[in-house]
Every structure is written in C-alpha cells, then in structure tokens.
C-alpha cells in the first residue's frame, strides 16, 4: 500500500475522485451520466494525443511548444487538399506526413544543432500557425462529408466514441513502448542524464529527434481528427492547446526536469482536466475563466511536484544518515 501511495500518479488519481465527487454533488445525475461523460471526452482527444507525445518529450528533458500550431497547419493543409479535389486518402496521408515532418524539423534543430528546445519550438509555435494563417486567412476550409463526424461514431456495440478508442489505443501502445521497450528506457535515460547516457552508448541524438518525430505524428493525427470533429479547418484551430497539454503532462506526475513520468499519469491528468472543464461547462463558466483555472492549475501542479520532490529528497538524505 505504501508503495502505491508513493507512485507519482496518485495525485491526479485522487484529484479525479475528488472531481467526480464534487461534480456529482453539484451537478447531480447529469454529470455522472456515463454516456454524457463519454461523449464529452471527444472534445479532449486531440489534446490527449498531443499530451502523449508531450509526455515523451518532457521525460527526455525537452519541451515542445509548437504542437498545437502543428495540428492547425496539418488540419488546414489536409482540408485544402480535399478542396482541391485530391482524394481523402491522399489528404490523410499528407496530413500525417506533414505533422511528422514538422516534428522531425524540430528534432533536428534541437538534437543536431543543439539549440534550446523552448526557443526552437517557440519559433515553431508562431511559424507553423503563421503558415496556416497565411494560407487560409480568416476563411475556413471545408472537410468533405465522408470524413466528418468521427466523434459521432462509436466502437460497435459499445458507448465508446471512436476518437476516444483511438486515444486509448495510442496511449496503450505508447505506454508499452515507453515502459517495455529499449527505446523507452533510452528516453528515460536521456532525460535523466544525457551525458552519462552518451557514455553508456545510448544514441542520444537519435532519441531526441525521435521523440519530436513521434510528437509531430501525434499532432498530425490530431489535426485530422479535429477536422473530422469540426467539419471545417481554420488557422486558429486549437488555440493555446499547448498549455492544456503541458499542464496535463506535468499534473500527471511527469517531472519538468526530465527522467520521470508515465503515460498512465498523463492520461489520468487529462481525465482530470476534462472533468474539470466539463464541470465548468455545465456550471456555465465562461471559456476565459476556464483559462484562468487551467493556468493556475499548471503553476500549482509544478509547485506541488517541486515541493514533493524536495521533501522526498530530504527524507532520503535523513534515511541515509
């Protein structure tokens, strides 16, 4: 039991229970309706996909501020392709390729040129969305009807919406990769101590580039899903989503310093953020108040992790005396 309590994921898990409790009490049966909750999760699938990639990035000691902009650009390009009468299959493949390519670009700049990731991806945050903006202006691009409505689709014979299923599958696969493969161990090692990892024959540059590529792919996938959900693509899709994503990752127990974290934690934190947002929505809290709450949540999450880490370190020092 003690070991369970010591796991970093306990924080979001507890908070989730709390949120459910509060929601249930204040909003009653509307909130605790499983179907309602499941349907509402469709809104957070894009964020979820990005958060999965972001978890890998932060564990490896980097950060990627450009994920939402990447998503937006992919969404726009993909929609524009169908508008130009390319087949949906091409539009989808192109979207994934673009997202992955942008991620690769980030990775190369950080890993090969040794530029700080927050600067590079800050430029990407502006740049990618800027290209989308330049392409689209304030107009929207229509997504062909064939591809719309993924959020209305369900896994056969279940109330689970398709996007959520996709997210869960991606989460499970990534979780397996992170915790059970060599690449996953390398990601933790690089985030813990890149120098010692290099000395231990870990391909540090390849790992760093790799996590950015994966995140880019996630952004591409998310861009396609958001198109299907909204039916139109705009340059300002998913504005500021990078913040929610980073908040979720940190809240889920991933340390900003690198070397620690898990997909499970991120998923729990996402669930928590989703629950909080749903609750706020039901309580008719405006988007801007929600923004305030999420921002404060990020800061508190990091503070809390920081403090607990210091306490743990202090106790460890005492024990070794």
């Amino acid at each position, binding site marked *: 039991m003690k070991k369970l309590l010591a796991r970093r994921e306990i924080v979001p898990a507890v908070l989730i229970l709390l949120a459910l409790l509060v929601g249930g009490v204040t909003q009653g049966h509307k909130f605790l309706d499983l179907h309602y909750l499941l349907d509402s999760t469709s809104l957070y699938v894009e964020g979820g996909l990005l958060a999965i990639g972001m978890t890998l990035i932060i564990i490896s000691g980097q950060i990627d501020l450009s994920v939402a902009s990447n998503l937006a650009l992919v969404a726009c390009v993909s929609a524009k392709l169908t508008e130009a009468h390319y087949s949906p299959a091409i539009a989808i493949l192109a979207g994934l390729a673009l997202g992955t390519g942008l991620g690769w670009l980030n990775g190369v700049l950080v890993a090969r040129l040794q530029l700080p990731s927050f600067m590079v991806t800050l430029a990407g945050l502006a740049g990618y969305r800027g290209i989308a903006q330049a392409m689209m202006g304030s107009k929207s691009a229509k997504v062909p009807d064939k591809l719309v409505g993924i959020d209305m689709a369900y896994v056969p014979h279940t109330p689970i919406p398709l996007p959520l299923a996709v997210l869960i599958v991606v989460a499970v696969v990534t979780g397996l990769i992170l915790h059970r493969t060599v690449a996953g161990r390398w990601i*933790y090692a690089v985030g*813990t101590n890149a120098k*010692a990892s290099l000395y231990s024959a870990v391909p540090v540059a390849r790992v760093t580039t790799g996590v950015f590529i994966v995140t880019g792919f996630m952004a591409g996938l998310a861009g396609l899903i958001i198109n299907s959900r909204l039916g139109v693509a705009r340059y300002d899709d998913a504005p500021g989503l990078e913040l929610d994503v980073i908040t979720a990752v940190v809240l889920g127990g991933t340390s900003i310093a690198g070397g620690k974290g898990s997909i499970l934690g991120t998923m729990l934190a996402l669930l928590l953020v989703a629950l909080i947002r749903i609750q706020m929505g039901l309580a008719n809290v405006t988007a801007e108040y929600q923004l305030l709450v999420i921002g404060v949540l990020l800061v508190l999450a990091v503070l809390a992790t920081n403090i607990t880490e210091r306490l743990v370190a202090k106790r460890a020092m005492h024990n070794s005396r």
Partner: protein
Amino acid sequence: MAFGGVEVVKGVDVALVPGEVHAIVGENGAGKSTVAKILAGVHRPTGGTVEIGGHPIAFENPRQAIERGIALIHQEPLTFPDLDVAENIFAGHPPTRGLLKRVDWPAMHARAQEILDRLGVKLSSASRVGGLSVADQQFVELAAALSRDAKALLMDETTAALTPKEVAELFTIVRRLRDEGTALAFVTHHLDEVFEIADRITVMRDDEKVAELLPKETDVREVVRLMVGRDVGDRSTRRSLFFAEEKKAALSVRNLSKEGRFSGVSFDVFPGEIVGLAGLVGAGRTDVCRAIFGIEKPTSGTVDLAGAPAGIRNPRDAVRQGVALVPEDRQHEGLLMPMTIGENGSLAILRRLARFGWRSEIAEQTAVDGYLERLHTSYRSSRQTVKELSGGNQQKVVLAKWLMSEPKVLILDEPTRGVDVGAKAEIHALIDDLVGKGLAILLVSSDLPELLDLSDRVLVMKEGRLVGEFGRADATPERVMFAATGQEAHAA
C-alpha cells in the same frame, strides 16, 4: 573531513605565513585540493580548526572567506566571459560615486589597470574576458582577489593549463606578491615549479600530511619518495608473463591528436596485457580515452582494432566493436544516479538483452544480478537506486555494465577512485582475472602504486605527449614521476 563516507583528508596541519610561498604537493587525489578548499571556505571541515591570525574562524561559504581576505584561484578560471577585464575584477563590488551610487567606470578601469600593473600583467582593462587565454583569465582572477585586499591567496593547480612562458609570468607575479607580504599557498604536483618558487613544502600522501620541509634542505628525489611512499604492493605475486599468443594488437593508436589537448599519441595494447597510462592531471590521459571511445572526435590520427580501422564515431560504434570505457567521473558520466541498479547495469547493452526491441525485465535482472554477484557486490535488490550504494559498490555496477558488453578492449579511467580498500582489492583481482582471459586493458590511474602494481607496461604522458615508456621491471615510482613532471625521460 569526509565525503560521502570516504574520508578525504585526515588531521592536516597547515600554516600560511605572510610573505611566504607555501607549496602543498602530493599525487592526484592525495587530498591537497581539499585542504585548499577547506581553507577557502568551499568545504567545511568535519574536524579540526581553521584560524586567522590565531583566531578560530568558520566559513559558511567562499564569500565569507573572501571578505576575510582569503581567496582561492581555481584551475578553471571562474570569470565572466561577456564582461571586460575591469568589471571581472570588480564584479560585485564596483567603485561608485555620486548620490545615485552609479558605477564609476573611469575609476574602475584606472584601479583595474593599477592592479594589473602591480602584478606586471600586460592586459588592457577593457578587453573582453571571454576572448582571453586561460592564463590571462587566471591573471584576471588573481587581480580580482587582490581587489578585495586578499591577504592569503590559494592557488589550486593553477599552472596545469599554462605554457612554460605563462608559468614564468605567473611566478614573477607570485614573487612580487610575496615580497609585498601576501601569504601564498600553491597546490601542485609540478615539482620543478615547487623548487623554483616555494619557500616551504608540505607533502601529502593518502589524505595525510607526511612531511613539511624547506626546499633548501631537500631535493626532488626525496619529495617524490615522500609523495609516493614505499608501499607499492607485493608485486611479486602478480603474474610476470602476459598471455600474448596474438601478435596483433587489440588496440592500436597511431598519431592520435586533438588540438589543444594531446598530440602524436601512438601505442598498442595487446590482448592479455594491461597498459598503464600515467601522468599528471591535465596531461591528456582522459582525453585520449575519450577520443578512442568516440566521445570526442580527434583532429587527426587513427585507431585500429585487431588490425583493422575502427571507424568509431560515437560510443555506440565503440561498444559494437568491443570497446568499453569506465569513465573517471562516476557520478556524472558513469552512472545515472537517480536510476536503479538494474537500469544502470543493463543500459549499455539493452538491445542485446531484448528481442526486437522488446525488453525483458527478467533477462536484464538476471544478467545484472549475475555480474554483480561475480563482483561480490553488496546490495539489497536491483530495484535500489544506485545513489544508495557505497562508492565501491557503485563502481562495481559500472564495471558490471561494461563487462556485460563483452568487450575485447577495456579502458579503465581511475577505476578505484573513491572506493574503499576492500572493494579496491576486489576490483584489482577482477582486472587480473579479465586480463588472464585475454582482454586488452588500458588503465589510467593517478594512484601510482595501483598503476605500477597492475600494469605490464607503463606509458607516461606529459602535457599532451607521450614522453616515456617503461616495462614492468623498470617502472619505479620515481622514474614514472620524473617523466610525468618532466625531469627525465627513459625509454624501456
């Protein structure tokens, strides 16, 4: 005082007298740097006292020491590269004028130039420090100490990175300061310099002070003898033949050079032999190891393995070809401290223990436990973090990691640093065992007895070049030390 359980310095009495240059000598790791750092407030002693003018004093941090007039000049200068010389000297306490206490640049430059002139250093107070040579940066650091009216200056291996010409310049300054009444301490192992500049010599060995002498009453040979001691181990129990059926060298280094660090290094290591690499700190030994292992690219030269060019571009290549390096900095290069024993142990060959990239905890644990047991490591479980282990056991984890890669060439850089006596003996036995099985071992060690005890041949490096080679029979501590400090060079 003690560092993490290993006592670093014991019962040392040292006095710094105004107007005197006091040299503290000893081999690498003898504890002389630690003494200087305690005096300068960088470390706090666990026992004994530090006194100024007869009054006991305890420094919480270096800043307090500086305020009391004690300054430490580091081997790697601690300067502000983006600022100019004058500001480097006066950082934190610039001269001010006026009601607003604005920084008085003309006064700062004038005073800086004054100090520089006083030292006899030919630098302009307006030059940007980032572009200066290491020597000049050290002069700047000296000047900075003087700007605080330092009464005692401790110089820690200050000459390590200087050319002979620069050393001469530094000594002129040192003499000047001495004549003005400053107390100077010089931590070094360059004995020729010691006899040139010191008024008094303290010799340290194995964390203790073994002698205090006046230069005119002694000579280099005696100092070396004191530094090195007589206990070089029972060399007769070591096998005197090495297993050399292979006429091809396992590792061949030819003309290896890296600008600024080492040049023209050539040697062979045969299977079944231990080649020891001796030299002072800064001689370039670790740099050579890093170049062979692929951490840094050499500027020129070749590395061949078993007769064929190795083409090592990074450590992964090296491991793939059977080369392993146990690095000198265990905490930052050898181990990932927050991770577990199992994670550390398996890190270098994860791919080999896995199937198509899929890891097997069992395979990893078995492998790690197996090797650790052979090394007689004491630990509770491979899920413990390495932080919790003692130095000796930590080193065994590093060794286990590399032995698992089944290397043909093993490079050991300070393998028993910070390791207790028992573990040290075990590691020595392991090294013997490995070499008996045909491994080619390159051993870098500042522990001269250890180096001489284990090596079949000893190569000596000095200031980036190979200056001597000794066979086992000819390698005495004195000869090796002489070569390392530039007294004489012998060929085997």
